[in-house]
């Protein structure tokens, strides 16, 4: 009865010189779900997302819609509908909000109408409309996070890789970010969510994966992980 996975990862391995950051992990993401990827600092979460996006070289099999994409570069993967909103937001600080959004859609003109997509983003994120002609570097952390997500969405992705979207944000902005993730998922977007804020992530996720030292320590339904006292003690102490 389970649909075939949107993303199927087998034996993913990332190393930086002698450091083995991700050690042969395997998992899959079903279409339409939120999969939370949690774990301590340095567990290999960012490396995993970066490898999936095609920025960081990795070995192992990455199948997207049943096709092996492990040989493709980041540009091609973006074209296939995989978008990464990287850790630390990484908006282009000297470019305006308008220019950041423009570049998000520039390579995907064949797929949809960029002007319509931009209007959609500005109504989803009204703050970006107010700041439209300001330099992105002048925005607050929360606004930059919204811009980074909107920029990713300009490519109309089917799979969104979100790396620590709530990092360093004020509590009420964190609430907004989580609400947004649920809302986006409600439109059918599949999301792979990396979060420090593990219990919040588990509350909105369907499934979850706990990474420790580059390996999968646990995986299962998010609600089960949230309910288990052992897991709470071991991984969700924050």
């Amino acid at each position, binding site marked *: 009865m389970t649909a075939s996975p949107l993303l199927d990862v087998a034996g993913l391995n990332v190393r930086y010189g002698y450091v083995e950051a991700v050690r042969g992990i395997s998992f899959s993401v079903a279409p339409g779900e939120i999969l939370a990827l949690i774990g301590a600092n340095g567990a290999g979460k960012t490396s995993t997302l970066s490898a999936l996006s095609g920025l960081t070289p990795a070995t192992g099999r990455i199948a997207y819609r049943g096709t092996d994409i492990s040989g493709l570069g980041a540009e091609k993967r973006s074209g296939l509908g995989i978008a990464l909103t990287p850790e630390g937001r990484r908006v*282009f600080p*000297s470019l305006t909000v308008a220019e950041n959004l423009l*570049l998000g859609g520039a390579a995907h003109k064949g797929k949809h109408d960029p002007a319509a997509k931009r209007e959609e983003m500005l109504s989803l994120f009204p703050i970006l409309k107010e700041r439209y002609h300001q330099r992105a570097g002048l925005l607050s952390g929360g606004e930059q996070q919204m811009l980074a997500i909107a920029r990713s969405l300009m490519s109309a992705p089917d799979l969104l890789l979100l790396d620590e979207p709530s990092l360093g944000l004020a509590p009420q902005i964190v609430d907004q970010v989580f609400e947004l993730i649920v809302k986006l998922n409600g439109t059918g977007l599949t999301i792979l969510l990396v979060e420090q804020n593990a219990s919040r992530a588990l509350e909105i996720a369907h499934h979850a994966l706990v990474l420790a030292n580059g390996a999968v320590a646990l995986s299962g339904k998010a609600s089960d992980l949230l309910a288990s006292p052992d897991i709470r003690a071991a991984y969700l102490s924050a």
Partner: protein
Amino acid sequence: MDLLLQHVINAVSLGGTYALLSLGLAIVFSIIGLINFAHGELMTAAGYTIFFMLAAGVSLPLAIVFAIVAVAILAMGIERVAFRPMRKADMTGLLITSFAMSMILQAFFQNAIGARPRAVAMPEALSGVVNLGSVHLGIIPLMSISITVVALVALNLFLKHTVMGITMRAAAEDIDVVRLLGLKAGRVVATSFAVSGVLAATAAFLWVAQRGSVDPLMGFVPVLKAFVATIVGGLGSLTGAVAGGMLLGIVEVLAQVVLPPSMVEFRDAFVLGFVILLLLVRPQGLLPAPTGRRS
């Protein structure tokens, strides 16, 4: 009074030429973090292109356009053949590649064309002066300034109002994110080289018009100065490159004017001494590129 105006015109004209050269260096540097020492040879190649075209009876404007296109293509060719295969190399490897490219091209010019300077036959009209009452202004420096202004405005429009221009500014800040957005980084790098080639060819024309000859080492000294200008302006910053180039031109003309005749031959030493003083006060340059591209 008119002498002062002439000096000012000369200073801005020379500064503008340095500004075009340092912009070419800065654009490539801002995107791949490499100072392309073969930039001088792009300039030389443009000089020879203009020389041969004029010798063949082609009109000057056509010769300039041809040189610009040819050198833009040459710059992209160098990127493709020499730098792209070295993409994963460290900074030392890239620097050595750029020096090697520079020397290979110099040797090519020396062997294929000859080491002695060739006189470039500029049209008569360029050697004239404009008389405004008691003020006599050379056509060449006035033309230099106009061409520099047009080139700077055109580059600014390109960087602000075209998708490729905006992508180049973005790539200067974070080229990995550019790739994440599905934009082709290789094409951005190639375009930055093409733009640097266009700027080098434009500067080459101004240089040749001023000096009337071209030789295999023509590009070496001006690009060395342009390199100094990019450092003075703040490495990687485009407005800084323009400011640095202008400042260097002005200081150079000033030194030429105020130094006693017996010391004029040490002009460059004074200019570089000034640069050292400036960098002691502002080690990051005049208008540095924003740092901390990542949080």
